[in-house]
C-alpha cells in the first residue's frame, strides 16, 4: 500500500481543459472528462483515483488555480 494517498478536486466550471495537469501527473491519475462545462471545455477529472499520492504537481502547474489537493499519510 502506498505511503501516501491523495485526491484532487477540480473546479470544473473554471477549468479550461488545457491538459497541463494531465501531463504533469506522475501517476497518470488525471484525464479529461468526456463531459463539458458551461463554456464547452472538457475538464480535468480523476480517472485513476486510487493511484493519487497527493504530490501537488497538478495544482502547481494549473494556470487557472482550479485544482485543490488533499493528502493523507497511511499509518
Amino acid at each position, binding site marked *: 500500500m502506498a505511503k501516501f494517498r491523495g485526491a484532487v478536486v477540480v473546479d470544473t466550471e473554471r477549468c479550461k481543459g488545457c491538459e*497541463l495537469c494531465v501531463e504533469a501527473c506522475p501517476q497518470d491519475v488525471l484525464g479529461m472528462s468526456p463531459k463539458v462545462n458551461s463554456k464547452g471545455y472538457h475538464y480535468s477529472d480523476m480517472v485513476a483515483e486510487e493511484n493519487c499520492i497527493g504530490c501537488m504537481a497538478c495544482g502547481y502547474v494549473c494556470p*487557472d488555480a482550479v485544482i485543490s489537493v488533499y493528502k493523507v499519510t497511511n499509518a
Partner: protein
Amino acid sequence: MTTQEIISPENLVYGKTKLLTDNVMHYCPGCSHGVVHKLIAEVIDEMGIQNTTVGVAPVGCAVFAYNYIDIDWQEAAHGRAPAVATAIKRLLPEHFVFTYQGDGDLAAIGTAETIHACNRGENIAIFFINNAIYGMTGGQMAPTTLEGMKTATCPAGREHELNGYPLKIGNLLAELDGTCYVTRQSVEKLAAVVKAKRAIRKAFENCREKKGTSVVEIVSTCSSGWKLTPHKSNLWMQENMLAKYPLGDLKNV
C-alpha cells in the same frame, strides 16, 4: 480510505490562495500568465503584505491583471510601468511595488523606462514574462523572437539581417549597477514552478531590504501565438527558448 474520506478540509495541502479573486482569468487555456499570477498572489499572501503592495499592470495580455489579484493596482501606459512604479515607490517608500510586464511591453516600447529604472536602482520588483511574441495582438514578432521562429510578421522565420537578433534584456539589466537580483525562471513543470516562486519571494524581500531593483524573467509559452497545444508549447519552449534564454540567476548580490 475512500477518496471521499480523503477530501476533507483537514487534509487540504494545496488550493487556490484567497488573494486570487474568483474572476475567471481571460487568458487562453494553458497560458503561463495564470501560473505567474498565482505565484505572485501566493507570495504576497505568505508574506502578509496584501495591504502594502501595489502592482503596476502593463499593456499586453496581462492588462487586466488587476482583476485577478486582490491588491492595489495601477494601470500604466504601454511600456511605462517602471516609470509609474518609480513614482509610487518614491511616494510610498514603505510599500512593496512591482511591475508585471510582457516582452512587448518591457523589451520593446518600454526599453528606455526599464533600463533607466534599473539603472537608478529603484527598490521595485519587475516581473517579466518572456514568450518571444506579441501575444495579445495576434502573435507578431517581438524583440525577443528567436531566430528562425515564424510569427505573423515574419512568416518565413526571423532573420537577423533583416530583423536583428533576439534581445537578451535580462543579461543587459544584470550589467547595470542598480539591479541587485536578476534571474531567469520558467513555470512549465513542478520543479520550475517551485523555483520561480522562490525567485518571486526573493524579489519582494529585496524590496523590503531596499537593495535595488529585482528582475524576475519568466520564460513562458504562448500556445495561441505559437499555434501549438499547451503541452507541445512547453516542449517547444524547453527545446528552443531555453537554448537561447538559459535559466538561472544572472545576478544576485
